[in-house]
C-alpha cells in the first residue's frame, strides 16, 4: 500500500536540490542481503550497481560492467540510509550551551518566516556521529520550546554528509515544512488550548488576506511580519506541509479540523494518542510521526500512549514514520533503529519497522521518488551492517551518501582511539590508562 502524498506534487513548485556526485564513479556491492524496502523485498546474494551516485540496478543477476569497482558484502545486510523525520541536527550542538543552540526563536508568537537554513552548520560534530551509524538524511526542524514561538518556523531536509556532500550541497530541500505546536506546548505558549487554535487561525486569516491588515496600517501591534505572511501564504497554497505537534486525541482532532478549514497539508508530530483517532487520520490521509517505544503517561496529554499503537495505525491505513520523541533525537538519531527494533519486538514485522525509518519518512517528506529504498533510479544512500539492522548489537560497517563512501570516523571514535589500549598479543584485554 503506497499512497503518494501530495508533497510529491510539489516538485514543480519547490526547488529540490538533489546534488549529483562530483565523481562519476561506478561500483557494485555484491553478495549482499539487500533490504530493498521496495516491491522486491529482501534479496539474498544480490548486487547493487551504483553509477554517478544513483542506483542503476538491483538484483540477483545484475551484470557488473567492466571497470566497476567491486565490493563484497560478505552476505551481510544492506539497507537504505536511515531518514530521521524530525531532528535538530545541524541546528544545535549542545543543549546546555546556549550559544550553540538555535532550535527555538524567543519572545515571538509567530516565527513563520524563520528558516533553519540560516543557522544550519554542516560542521556539526553530531553529523559524523550519526552518519557512521547509518543515518543519511534528516529533517531539521525549529522547535516550539518554552518561551519560543507557537509557529516555530520552517525546517529543512539535510544530508548528513555535511561538508562532504557532493558539490557542497548538503541542504537537500530548504523550507521543507512549517512547524507549529498544539497540545500542552501550544497552550503554554498561547495561554490555553483554545487560545492556541485561535492564534493559528488568526495568523492563517491574516495570511489569506494577503496581510491586508498589515497593508492597511492596522497592525501597529502586529505580531506577523510581512515575511511571516509570505511564508504562511506558501503554507496555505500547499507548497509545504504543516507539521503540528499534537499528542492527545482531542488535540489531533482539532488539528484535523484546522487543516480541513484551511486546506492545509498536515503531518501530526507526536501522536501519542493517534491510535484513538486512527480512522479520522486515515480518511484524510494525514500521516503521523511518532515514537513507537513510548508507553508511559509522561504528560497528561499522553495518558493513552501504548506500545502497540502502530499496529492499530497500520491496520487503519494510517501512514507513519518513527521519530525519537525524547530530548535525544538529535545526538542519538542513530538510535532510531533501536526504536524500530522495539516496534518489531511488539508485533510489527521487521520489514515494516525498517520501512518506518527509511521509505515511510521519505514518503511523508515527499522524498520517496529519490530516497528511502534501494531501487533503480534512486539516490545511492546505502548502509552495510554487520548483522540484523534493527538489532542493538549490530553496527554499520560502511555508509554511502549520494554514492560516496563516508569515512567511518567521528569525534567519538577519535576519543576512543586516543584512550583505548588494544588487547595485548596474548589476548588479554589491556586496561585503558589515564593520560
Amino acid at each position, binding site marked *: 500500500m503506497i499512497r503518494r502524498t501530495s508533497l510529491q506534487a510539489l516538485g514543480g513548485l519547490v526547488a529540490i536540490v538533489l546534488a549529483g556526485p562530483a565523481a562519476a564513479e561506478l561500483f557494485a556491492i555484491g553478495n549482499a542481503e539487500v533490504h530493498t524496502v521496495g516491491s522486491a523485498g529482501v534479496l539474498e546474494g544480490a548486487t547493487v550497481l551504483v553509477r554517478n551516485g544513483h542506483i542503476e540496478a538491483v538484483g540477483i543477476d545484475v551484470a557488473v560492467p567492466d571497470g566497476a569497482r567491486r565490493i563484497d558484502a560478505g552476505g551481510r545486510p544492506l539497507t537504505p540510509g536511515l531518514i530521521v523525520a524530525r531532528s535538530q541536527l545541524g541546528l544545535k550542538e549542545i543543549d546546555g550551551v546556549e550559544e550553540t543552540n538555535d532550535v527555538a526563536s524567543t519572545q515571538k508568537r509567530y516565527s513563520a518566516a524563520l528558516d533553519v537554513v540560516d543557522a544550519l552548520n554542516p560542521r556539526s560534530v553530531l553529523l559524523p556521529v550519526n552518519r557512521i551509524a547509518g543515518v543519511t538524511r534528516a529533517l531539521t526542524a525549529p522547535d516550539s520550546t518554552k518561551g519560543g514561538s507557537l509557529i516555530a518556523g520552517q525546517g529543512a531536509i539535510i544530508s548528513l554528509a555535511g561538508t562532504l556532500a557532493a558539490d557542497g550541497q548538503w541542504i537537500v530541500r530548504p523550507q521543507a515544512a512549517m512547524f507549529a505546536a498544539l497540545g500542552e506546548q501550544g497552550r503554554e505558549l498561547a495561554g490555553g488550548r483554545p487560545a492556541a487554535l485561535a492564534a493559528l487561525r488568526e495568523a492563517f486569516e491574516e495570511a489569506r488576506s494577503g496581510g491586508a491588515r498589515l497593508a492597511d496600517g492596522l497592525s501597529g501591534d502586529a505580531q506577523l511580519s510581512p515575511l511571516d505572511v509570505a511564508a504562511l501564504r506558501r503554507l496555505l497554497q500547499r507548497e509545504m506541509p504543516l507539521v503540528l505537534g499534537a499528542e492527545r486525541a482531542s488535540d489531533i482532532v482539532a488539528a484535523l479540523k484546522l487543516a480541513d478549514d484551511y486546506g492545509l497539508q498536515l503531518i501530526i508530530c507526536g501522536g501519542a494518542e493517534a491510535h484513538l483517532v486512527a480512522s479520522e487520520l486515515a480518511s484524510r490521509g494525514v500521516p503521523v510521526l511518532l515514537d513507537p517505544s513510548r508507553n508511559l503517561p509522561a504528560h497528561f496529554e499522553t495518558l493513552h500512549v501504548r506500545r502497540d499503537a502502530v499496529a492499530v495505525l497500520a491496520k487503519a491505513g494510517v501512514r507513519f514514520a518513527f521519530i525519537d520523541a525524547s530530548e535525544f533525537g538529535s545526538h542519538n538519531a542513530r538510535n532510531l533503529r533501536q526504536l524500530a527494533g522495539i516496534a518489531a519486538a511488539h508485533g510489527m514485522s521487521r520489514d515494516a519497522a525498517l520501512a518506518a525509518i527509511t521509505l515511510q519518512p521519505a514518503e511523508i517528506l515527499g522524498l520517496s521518488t529519490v530516497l528511502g529504498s534501494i531501487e533503480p533510479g534512486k539516490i545511492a544512500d546505502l548502509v552495510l551492517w554487520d548483522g540484523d539492522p534493527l538489532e542493538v548489537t549490530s*553496527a554499520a560497517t560502511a555508509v554511502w551518501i549520494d554514492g560516496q563512501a563516508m569515512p567511518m570516523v567521528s569525534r567519538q*571514535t577519535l576519543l576512543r582511539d586516543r584512550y583505548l589500549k588494544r588487547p595485548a598479543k596474548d589476548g588479554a584485554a589491556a586496561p*585503558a590508562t589515564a593520560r
Partner: protein
Amino acid sequence: MTRSARACLAALATVLLAACGDRHPAPIAAADPFPSTYRAPESSAVLIRGATVLTGLDTRLDDTDVLLSDGRIAAIGKGLAAGGTTVIEAGGRYLTPGIIDVHSHLGVYPAPGVWATSDGNEATAPTTAEVWAEHSIWPQDPGFQAARAGGVTTLQVLPGSANLIGGRGVVIKNVPAVTYQQMLFPGARRSLKMACGENPKRVYGKNGGRSPATGMGNVAGYRAAFAKASGYRAKWDAWSKDKKGPSPDRDLAMDTLADVLRGHILVQMHCYRADQMATMLDVAREFGFKIQAFHHAVEAYKIADLLADTQTCGALWADWWGFKLEAWDAINENIAIVDAARSDQGPGCAIVHSDDPDGIQRLNQEAAKAMAAGRRAGLPISEEHAIGWLTANPAKALGILETTGTLEVGKAADVVLWSRSPFSVYAHADQVWIDGVLRLDRARPNPQPDSDFMLGADVDEAVATPPAAATGDTP
C-alpha cells in the same frame, strides 16, 4: 550467601537498619524511623527446567535447572527432581538475576511529570543532607510496573542532582505497593546522593546568584559540609561512650553526613568529567568516606585505572551524550573500558544505569549495545560477563550483593526468565520473580494496571474488561 547473613536479613526486616554484625556499628539513632514493611507473600516452589543460566558470576550454565523455594534460590543443577513443585520448561530460554538499576527517579519524578509530582530536587540550598528521597516516592508511578516488565526487580531511587549534596537515596524492591515502606529493601543501607559539575553551579550560581557558582565553589561546598560533619560525629561519638550529661543537639543533615563517615550510608555521586572524579576521590580520602559509584560518568574511560585502583564503580549509559558540555566526550566503549580495567585492588566495576523511566525498561538492550561496542573495539566480553553490569555490580555498589544480584543457592529468588538472550532488542522478560513471587507473567498479563492512577484512565475501555481477581500480595 552465608547463614549469618541470612539471619541478619531477617533481623533487619523488623526494625533495625544496618545493625548487623560488627562491620556496621549502630548509628546514633539506632532505630530506623522509617522501617521496611515489605514482606514477600507466600509463594509455592517453582522449578525452572532446562534454562540457559547467566549467574551474574561470569558463568553460563547451559540446560540447567533452578529451583525457587521459600523466596530463595534453593538449588541449581541438572536434572533436579520436580517433586510437587510447579515446573516451567525454559526450553533453553535465558535465566538471569533480576536487573538492578542503581540510578532511578521513579516515584520522585513520576509519570505524569507535572508540578504536583515533581519531587526529586529540594533545590532550595546546595546541601540538603537532611532530606530523604523516599519521602517523595509516589508508589502509584506507572513507571514501576513498566520497569518490572523490563526485568527490573530492585532499584535505587535517588534525589536529583541540583544540589552538591542532595539527600538520602533508598533501595527498593520493585513490587506493587500503596506505601513506600512496603517497597523498602529490607536491610539495605540508605545512600547519599552527591553531584559534581554543571548542575549545582547552574542552579545556585547562574540561576540563584549564590554559591556555588564555579567548580571550585562546588568543592568548597562538599568540604565545608564534611568538615562540619566530622566535628558533629566526634561530638556524638564522645557522648555515646558513656552518655553522661545532656546529648548534643541533633541536626538532621549532620546525622546523615556523620553516618556517611561511619560507613552506614553509601555515597552515590553524579559526576561526568574525569578531572572532577579524581578531585572527588581526593575529597573522599580527606574525610574518610568511600564513593561507591560515579553515576553518568561519561569520561570514566579516561580514568578507568584510577577507578579500579579505588574500587569505585562507574554507573553509566551506553550512549547518551551531548546534552551539556560535561557530557560532550562520551564514547560508546565507555562501559567496556571501565569494565576491562585491572588493578591490584580488583577488576573494574561497570554498571549500566538508566536515570530514565524509558531507559529502565530496556537496560538489557543498553548493556547489549555496550557489550557489542566493546567487542568491536577488541575487548572480549561474553554475555555471562556483561550480565554482571546489570546484576552483580549494581548489587555490589548498593551493598546488597550478599542477598541478591547473582543466581546462587541461598540468595533471594529475584529472577528473570527471558524469551531469548536478553542481549537483543527482541528479548522480552517472560516471567519475573521477586523473592520467589511471580510478579510478571507476560503470557498472563493483568488486564488492569497496577497503578491506581492508570486505572480507569479510559473508563470506556475499563468497563468492557472484567476486573481482575485481587492478587492478595499487597499488604
